[in-house]
């Protein structure tokens, strides 16, 4: 075999790519980290951090015409704002297609760090309640791992990341956390009311990848509020703040930005991937990079797309797809249902605030634990916040003149909301294929999605709305409004699946170590690997799976198995 330029290639520098780069370089491998997007440097390139609305051309309203023209999908997501749009892709220039009756909202951040710059930082462990669910329900296939396999790696990544949470109150909460981010007075009021009224429900601080104590050279959070604009203090975990500096410190990392990976190259004689073909996003020139090990961390849908685009004579339906399930069993989370209201009798401090804790509250899943719910299987957890509306409460309200102005000197009554995030059952029909007709700017077929919510998700949402309303009622919340507006699939930003893990190469793409069943030196550790979605936010699990897979891959290399 020809000498490789690198020991390992990692595709993607986001949540999992940053971890793969760190773990592989720290084990002595020379790593080429390929990022399709532009460079974003920690601190320096957080151009909107700490800026008030008056500093923005459209005062935070965003350039409406540009938004409608260039960001029709990205702007559907709460993270999109005049202050963050430069971390989200241009939809017009980067289209994809869907079946007409099943829209899909694909949120993408193409830059170094990917969506690790934008994520909502909630870190929840999966437990065996989740890992056993498919087998217990007779749905899809069994996970090839259990909690005990991942527990050491949850411990490992959590201790590097630094997670703040209320220790020990629920098994989904990371071990040995830093002190939790504070709940505010209105959130504490809800916490007490729920504790008094509902024996099976708990309101706790959301476990977050936000430091409350200085850690590994990163500083504790100073509560400015909008983490997704960039966090130069490093309190917020991102590739920029944590994993890439660690990778760089080894001297083994080469980062190439503006590098579109066209396909993964495979050698039939040796039955190994040999590297990747890269198109330079700026010049259009292509170059083949070779390595002994390839990790796909391009984000779930992009990793799947890459393999579909790397078909060979042996793998006619996509590289590493002897099972035929590549692109299938896509999953997301069911959201968009809950309730909100007002707490006018709780004091607000009588002033405006120049920021707030980025925390929220977390209510762990309480359905289908002890008792079987009559309407649905699996479950959902809930999150929410209490916030002060400020002057915006006057929009659509009454009042003019000095009296209005005087009133708006006060920030208003606490508005509190609770909403759910529920598991989505994996079905074969929810899938991604390559478009037969549309290609991207570099000649690569764009993804074509078919994704429809199922009955279980619909029933779950109805339950979320009811549960939210009754908890708010218990706290004396007024003007309670229930909402149940199913979001377009993908809009929760937790799109996963497409290259699931499993024991049987006939029904799964990856084994228990995120290794391709078909090709031993190919690994996928981003969301594509998920065999079920659980209800928990997935990034912490992606990190743990990545670190575990890197450890395994390097041990296999040392044994000469790869």
């Amino acid at each position: 075999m020809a000498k490789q330029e690198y020991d390992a290639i990692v595709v993607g520098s986001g949540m999992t790519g940053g971890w793969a780069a760190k773990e592989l370089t720290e084990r002595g491998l020379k790593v080429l980290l390929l990022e399709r997007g532009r460079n974003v440097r920690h601190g320096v390139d957080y151009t909107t951090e700490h800026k008030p609305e008056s500093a923005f051309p459209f005062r935070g309203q965003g350039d409406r015409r540009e938004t409608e023209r260039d960001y029709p999908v990205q702007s559907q997501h709460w993270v999109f704002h005049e202050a963050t749009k430069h971390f989200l892709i241009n939809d017009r220039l980067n289209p994809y297609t869907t079946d007409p009756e099943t829209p899909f909202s694909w949120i993408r951040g193409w830059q170094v760090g990917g969506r690790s710059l934008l994520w909502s930082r909630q870190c929840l462990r999966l437990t065996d309640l989740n890992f056993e669910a498919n087998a217990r329900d007779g749905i899809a296939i069994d996970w090839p791992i259990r909690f005990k396999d991942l527990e050491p790696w949850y411990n490992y990544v959590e201790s590097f990341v630094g997670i703040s949470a209320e220790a020990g109150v629920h098994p989904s909460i990371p071990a040995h956390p830093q002190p939790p981010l504070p709940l505010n007075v209105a959130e504490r009021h809800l916490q007490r009311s729920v504790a008094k009224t509902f024996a099976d429900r708990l309101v706790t601080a959301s476990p977050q990848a936000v430091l409350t104590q200085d850690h590994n050279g990163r500083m504790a959070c100073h509560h400015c509020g909008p983490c997704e604009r960039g966090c130069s203090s490093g309190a917020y975990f991102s590739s920029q703040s944590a994993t890439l500096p660690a990778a760089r410190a080894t001297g083994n990392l080469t980062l190439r930005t503006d590098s579109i990976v066209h396909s993964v190259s495979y050698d039939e004689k040796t039955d190994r991937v040999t590297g990747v073909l890269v198109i330079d996003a700026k010049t259009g020139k292509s170059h083949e990079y070779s390595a002994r090990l390839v990790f796909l961390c391009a984000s779930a849908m992009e990793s799947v797309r890459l393999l579909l685009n790397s078909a060979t004579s042996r793998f006619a339906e996509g590289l590493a797809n002897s099972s035929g399930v590549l692109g299938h069993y896509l999953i997301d989370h069911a959201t968009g249902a809950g309730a909100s209201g007002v707490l006018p009798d709780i004091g607000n401090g009588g002033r405006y605030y120049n920021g707030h804790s980025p925390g929220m509250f977390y209510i762990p899943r309480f359905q289908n634990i002890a008792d079987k719910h009559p309407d649905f299987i699996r479950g959902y957890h809930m999150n929410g916040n209490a916030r002060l509306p400020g002057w915006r409460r006057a929009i659509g309200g009454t009042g003019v003149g000095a009296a209005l102005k005087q009133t708006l000197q006060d920030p208003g009554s606490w508005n509190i909301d609770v909403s759910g995030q529920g598991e989505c059952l994996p079905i074969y029909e929810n899938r991604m294929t390559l478009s037969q007709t549309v290609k991207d700017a570099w000649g690569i077929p764009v993804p074509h999605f078919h994704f429809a919510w199922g009955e279980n998700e619909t029933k779950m949402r109805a339950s979320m709305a009811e549960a939210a309303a009754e908890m708010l009622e218990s706290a004396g919340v007024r003007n309670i409004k229930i909402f149940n507006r199913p979001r377009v699939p993908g809009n929760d930003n937790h799109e996963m699946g497409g290259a699931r893990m499993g024991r049987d190469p006939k029904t799964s793409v990856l084994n228990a170590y995120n290794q391709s069943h078909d090709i031993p030196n190919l690994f996928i550790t981003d969301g594509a690997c998920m065999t079920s979605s659980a209800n928990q936010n997935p990034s912490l699990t992606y990190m743990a799976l990545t670190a575990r897979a890197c450890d395994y891959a390097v041990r296999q290399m040392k044994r000469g198995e790869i």
Partner: protein
Amino acid sequence: MIKYHPSRREALLYAVAVLGGVLISPGLAAAVESGVSRSGSSLKFLSIAQNALVGGLAETILPETDTPGATAAGVDRFIDMMLADWYPKKESDRFIAGLVDIEKRCLVDEGEHFLTLPAARRLAFLERLDAETAAMQVIAGRPAPFFAMLKELVLVGYYTSEVGEASIGYIGPIGDDYPEDEPVRPVAGLLGAKHG
């Protein structure tokens, strides 16, 4: 924040708008409707006359109190920019039609142009419009009434300006803490229909 240097004519119209004095140009009402001239100004959408009326309305909605008002915050310029660069043409045109209507309504109700009314009568006129607008049924998919659109623009234009941010002591998302324990009671009789 958009800073500008008004022409002498604009400055005179401003003085009229704020102080409610006698109009220098008798053709001002006609000028609001025809919306012809913004030559010599840095306006992008509104005519000078329309801009003066918008300025007068804004200053009545959020006047100078112990903190500066909408005029000092450049709300009229913000509204001009939004009409030119942000709203689709149909909505910007609807705003102008609403502006013309408000002038006509004022002539009917008060017997005078808005900008010639003294401050107390300007406020009373807008309080009536505000109450009427609040009583209107909100129909999903139908455009908001003009006065609601105007008031929203004034609120946003003021409170996202440097002047407006300073008036509520807001510097930006730089770091702070909501109260964790029971703090000072809220002010009694809060306005604001939606959330109290």
